[in-house]
């Protein structure tokens, strides 16, 4: 599955468009990691607990979006965008969305 933020792909022709596909995920770390993250917040620097959390959510949201695109017979997603919000303290949501297309080499 080719995923791109651009509207089209170099050397590829869009043969068919399947419309919007999206995948979202909400995840949280456990209380122990939240406490560790709060302590790191006091002294500064990267909060690796939350970096990991965002990475997990991003990958899961992307996978769900790709799964939906595959289900429609697409082999690429163009115009990918991410949106994120916070549902609850310490939980992260990412929405990945784009346009599912079927492409072939020009």
């Amino acid at each position: 599955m080719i995923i791109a933020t651009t509207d089209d792909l170099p050397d590829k022709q869009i043969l068919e468009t399947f419309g919007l596909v999206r995948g979202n995920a909400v995840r949280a770390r456990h209380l122990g990691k939240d406490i560790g993250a709060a302590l790191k917040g006091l002294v500064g620097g990267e909060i690796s607990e939350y970096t990991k959390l965002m990475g997990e959510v991003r990958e899961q949201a992307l996978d769900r979006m790709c799964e939906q695109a595959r289900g429609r017979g697409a082999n690429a997603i163009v115009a990918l965008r991410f949106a994120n919000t916070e549902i609850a303290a310490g939980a992260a949501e990412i929405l990945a969305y784009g346009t599912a297309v079927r492409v072939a080499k020009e």
Partner: protein
Amino acid sequence: MTDTDETTPRRERPDPDELSCMAYVDDELAPDARAELERRMADEPELTARVSAYRKLEVLARQVAPAEPADHEWRRLDREGVQRAGLGVGWTLFVGGALFFYGWLGLELFRDDELELVPKLAIAAAVGGFGILLGMTLRARLKTLPHDPYTEVER
């Protein structure tokens, strides 16, 4: 080195289920075969576990990137005795102290003669109910954890 070299560990041919699991994760199964595997996964936990293991590998392979210098320093710190001991003692004192405090608080509440039996029972029911809910949620999480391929994502 040749294929017949006895020092070379021999890789047994993957069985048909293993091939199906790999193809499933790579989205290379035909729709019928995919539906059949999914139907079997609903009844065969071992098959589900195999698919989960391959799924984890697939997600991990996406994350392959050079380690940053800070990663080495974090790993070195994780191995350092002072850091490990400090974190261990800190967590033990913190969790132990919190559990003791809440236990003591509960006991004092029940010893309180001014509080009637009904509110005491209500508090006990609320705390007990919360404990059961937490236990069940934890149980569900632990059961599904081996099938969660995203736990290995670092950043």
